[in-house]
């Protein structure tokens, strides 16, 4: 039964409650690595090379830094090393495996309980998504997201 705010929210943006996502739908989401982020495995960890911003603001900041001689040359990308478990989760994010599949993989590899693995993996994937290192695609792709909004 929809409330008044939900009804209004269908027509007026920013009004109404955010749609709640069921747990099984959340586990069916597919994490996808950002195509611009390069990565390589070195021994036991994965190292990500994240390209620096190259928009007008970033170029202006770089120019100011050069003028003030704070640095001779700024790196084109920054590197981020993931720990052992994080590296394993990163490699499982192949654009085909769902979050549930990643959780199952971690459960088997590290002998964690389902709940431990789910809590750790979902928190880690949220962190990666906030940093724009991965995207989260619903199982049906964009269409299913639009259908839900209707």
């Amino acid at each position, binding site marked *: 039964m929809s409330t008044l705010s939900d009804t209004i929210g269908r027509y007026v943006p920013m009004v109404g409650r955010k749609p709640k996502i069921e747990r099984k739908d959340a586990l069916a989401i597919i994490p996808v690595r950002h195509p611009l982020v390069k990565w390589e495995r070195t021994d036991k960890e994965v190292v990500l090379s994240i390209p620096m911003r190259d928009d007008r603001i970033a170029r202006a900041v770089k120019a100011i830094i050069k003028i003030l001689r704070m640095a001779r040359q700024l790196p084109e990308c920054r590197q981020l090393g993931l*720990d052992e*478990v994080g590296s394993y989760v990163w490699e499982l994010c192949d654009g085909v495996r769902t979050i549930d599949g990643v959780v199952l993989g971690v459960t088997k590899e590290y002998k964690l309980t389902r709940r431990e693995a789910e809590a750790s993996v979902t928190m880690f994937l949220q962190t990666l998504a906030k940093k724009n290192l991965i995207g989260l695609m619903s199982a049906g792709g964009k269409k299913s997201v639009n259908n839900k909004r209707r």
Partner: protein
Amino acid sequence: MAIQTAPVGWHGIIVDAPADWSLVGVNGDAKKGYFRVDSPIASALEVKWEQAFGKKPDLMAKAREFLANIEKSARKRKVKFDTDLKADKGAVDSVRFLWRADRLGQGRLVYCERCDRVVIAQVITTRDENVSKVASEMLDSVRDHREDGWIEWGLYGLGFAIPPGYSIEKQTLMSGFLALFFKKGAKTIVVERWGLASTLLAKDDMATWYRKDAVPDVKGYRVEFEPDAVAGHEGLRVKGWRRGIVQAVKAAGYSLTLHQHPGLLTGYVWHCADSNRLFSVRATHIEGEQIAEKVRDLIICH
């Protein structure tokens, strides 16, 4: 195919739940409390207990009162509600109930004369999830004491028991790390479990890891450890002695009473490769007590 179960419970109230069900909330003490265990899908087991204050309760009346509260909530949501209540043929002082609304509930009330506690356990499930067999088995397994008088605890696959008289002081329940601290006067027992043992021990040996991770939490005792096989696994034996002025003053204070201050600490740490976990039990005690050994022997690591 038999479902793998693990004991889950708090303050001696234990239920054998499927291994993939998890403790999600705990509240209260030995006299009155509550815990909830969730299934991976949408079912849940709720357990409440309260003291009977020496008077044997009318379980049917208590069950009717309990169901009346659920019915009230269902009526507010304008949902049809019906119940079924009967005395448990399989056990004395036990009543079973069923209720149906937008969800389904299956439960049991038990009175234990020895512990003087009434325990109410119910499994709530959605109409399209069939857990009736699992629910019946869980409700059959409800128990609130051990024959030896020790108090049982169980969470996330870790089950153990503590001697009577100890109360839980603090718990840390994190993904990958569990720690429970028990106290009886000045004596303490600490039970800890770490996941991802292979990762923790990748860079350091067990003694170095334990010195960095756990020893800083040990206050008032000087500890030493030596390698020792524990429960058939690679492990450490921890020995400790009281130290510091504060502890000396406490011991002096205790010497004026009939109780001795625990001057010794004994602990065991072991790595179970089968479950990829590290376990630790340590207890402060007086000379001649073997508390840490007894608690250690009750832990099943895999």
